[in-house]
């Protein structure tokens, strides 16, 4: 009998950790394709190292879908602990008031190393000097080009075009030599417009891009903007630029480049791993370069793109602690290196960069280096910090509408003036609703 009791007791003790309740943390993200598996693996590793916490990642679709899903969940009181929100949704997220500023959850003793975030990234995600969200996947636009086709056209494969005019010249040569039917392509997305404004040092909105105070005026008909549109239209008319016809068609642009219809592609550096594979499969040499800048302008660099991770309010302290621990782990040095190697998004921590440099990663993988060098070369001014606007989704549509009108023949100045008026009105109404 005694032995039985002892055995029972032993079994119970061994079973207790299994019976102990794990703190559950739900993590909704918008990283599709291979990244779903990568994130799952990373979360599994965390769960193994922290048996009292269980992080469950879920892929919710595009950034928009993820945001909408979170809204739905929030309305029903079932918001996930972590929501993945795109960079331009930051003002909206702050205004919504349903997220906890991440920095506030950090306790003394947590090894947060907030200063370890790369400057460009920290610049973007520090709002009013505080980190509201945790930077996670950051990218910027790079110029991908087909070195094989460049050689065919008699262009220097190690010297990609750096300015608007150089792009025109290269495209003309590519076309004339028959190397490719078109010179260049990129998705019809407002992101690129924002980038070309940033790298000319131009503001998208007043009050220092909405960073010094809430923006009240959007600047869509400025000189730098007109420069962008004029160049874009000229290349479209001269058949140097091609696009799939659909708005925000990242896949379509990738296809045009991979199939050799366009010898150059501007798209996110987050596709670098995919691009390298595609180049191998299609037997061409891949080159990468900086985003071309408008002629006559200093190149101020690029705005950090991508998204960050936000913590929702309304959970227990225990859950918040667990969430914070996970977020710090998920974006720590080792994991940033892992994430970068697996995707192409650049490492957002300086220590991660140092590690990669130590193993000569960037030399061995020059394609990954371009985006990074571009980030390092970016000057920390308001224009490259990016604009903070609550109605960004609507603004992006206004801009892409304007671009399509222009490509279809509308007058550039008039169209942008119109777009500017529309944007200002939308901003005014938005601001009114958050007073």
């Amino acid at each position, binding site marked *: 009998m005694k032995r039985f009791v002892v055995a029972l007791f032993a079994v119970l003790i061994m079973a207790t950790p299994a019976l102990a309740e794990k703190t559950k943390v739900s993590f909704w993200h918008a990283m599709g394709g291979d990244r779903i598996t990568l994130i799952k693996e990373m979360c599994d590793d965390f769960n193994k190292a922290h048996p009292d916490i269980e992080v469950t990642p879920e892929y919710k679709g595009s950034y928009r879908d993820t945001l909408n899903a979170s809204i*739905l*969940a929030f309305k029903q009181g079932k918001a996930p602990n972590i929501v993945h929100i795109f960079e331009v949704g930051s003002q909206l997220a702050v205004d919504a008031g349903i997220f906890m500023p991440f920095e506030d959850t950090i306790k003394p003793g947590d090894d947060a190393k907030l200063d370890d975030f790369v400057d460009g990234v920290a610049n973007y995600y520090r709002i009013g000097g505080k980190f509201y969200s945790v930077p996670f996947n950051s990218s910027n636009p790079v110029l991908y080009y087909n070195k094989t086709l460049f050689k065919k056209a008699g262009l220097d494969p190690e010297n990609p075009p750096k300015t608007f005019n150089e792009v025109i010249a290269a495209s003309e040569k590519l076309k004339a030599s028959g190397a490719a039917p078109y010179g260049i392509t990129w998705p019809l997305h407002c992101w690129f417009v924002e980038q070309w404004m940033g790298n000319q040092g131009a503001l998208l909105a007043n009050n220092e891009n909405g960073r010094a105070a809430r923006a009240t005026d959007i600047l869509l008909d400025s000189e730098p903007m007109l420069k962008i549109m004029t160049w874009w239209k000229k290349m479209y008319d001269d058949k140097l630029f091609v696009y799939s016809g659909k708005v925000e068609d990242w896949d379509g642009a*990738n296809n045009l480049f991979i199939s050799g219809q366009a010898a150059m592609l501007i798209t996110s550096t987050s596709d670098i791993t995919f691009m390298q594979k595609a180049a191998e499969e299609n037997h061409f040499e891949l080159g990468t370069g900086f985003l071309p800048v408008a002629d006559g302008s200093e190149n101020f660099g690029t705005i950090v793109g991508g998204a960050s991770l936000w913590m929702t309010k309304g959970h227990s302290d225990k859950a918040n602690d667990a969430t914070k621990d996970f977020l710090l782990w998920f974006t720590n040095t080792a994991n940033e290196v892992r994430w970068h190697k697996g995707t192409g998004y650049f490492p957002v921590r300086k220590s991660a960069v140092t590690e990669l440099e130590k193993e000569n990663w960037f030399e061995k993988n020059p394609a990954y280096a371009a985006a990074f060098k571009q980030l390092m070369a970016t000057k920390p001014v308001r224009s490259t910090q990016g604009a903070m606007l609550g109605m960004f989704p609507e603004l992006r549509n206004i801009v892409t509408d304007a671009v399509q009108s222009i490509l279809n023949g509308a007058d550039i100045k008039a169209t942008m003036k119109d777009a500017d008026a529309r944007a200002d009105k939308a901003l005014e109404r938005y601001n009114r609703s958050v007073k």
Partner: protein
Amino acid sequence: MRKTKHLFTHLALVIVVSVVAAPVIMAILFSTQTPAQIYSYPPKFTFGTAMLENYASAWNQFHLGKYMLNSFIIAVAVTTGKTILAFTSALALVYFRFPLRSWVFIFILLTLMMPTEIMIVSLFEIVTGLGWGDSYAALIVPFLASATGTFLFRQHFLQIPSSLLDAARIDGAGPIRFAWSILLPMSSNVIAALTVIQFVYMWNQYLWPLIVIHDSSMQVVQVGLRMVFGGQDATNWGIVMAGAIITLMPALVTFMLLQEQFSRGFALSQEK
């Protein structure tokens, strides 16, 4: 002379029918091709080599199988529920006398002018307020009541000769037995017609599930089709077309097999 006219008519009909069928035939053809075959120029108008892969991908990788199950469940639930509720409402309206009866009928009839689409924003608020987001309840409950169905059953009941019913009454039958043993068998045509129309209608729903379902395991098949476009890699049109063919099958098969009932239900529901 008549023969030529007949020939001409046949020819015209064949041409028209072919043009009408062409999009789906194209879809079927391309659903069997690999991306390379689809992108080839000139396009190949023959069956490709990727039929199994494409259909399997659409079913598994893009979860169309699961979505179809969801669609099926809600279509059956709504169809059953709606038919029952319409039947009982018409029963009350025709065979019972109670105060305000005509007002109740008008109350129900007025909803004919309230398609779900005009109230999606506030319906969303109401449904999420009940905590039904991402659930079958959100897709089923708002559609359980039907002015159309009630009206149809009512018209049908009014046309049943009273002699038949008087006989039953004399028998001493109560309302429930009356409905069950007499009305129900006599209404089989209406029920069949209504069922077919409702099933197809629920199967084809798009806007409402798009708004209220964000959990992919609960999504319906029409919205699921949209998700086949996602991902990092290029759109594989072969798989998309396979998905389209899979998705249209149940609606089409219902229509073909139950064509009689479909047309009847259709005609009935439009002549309100």
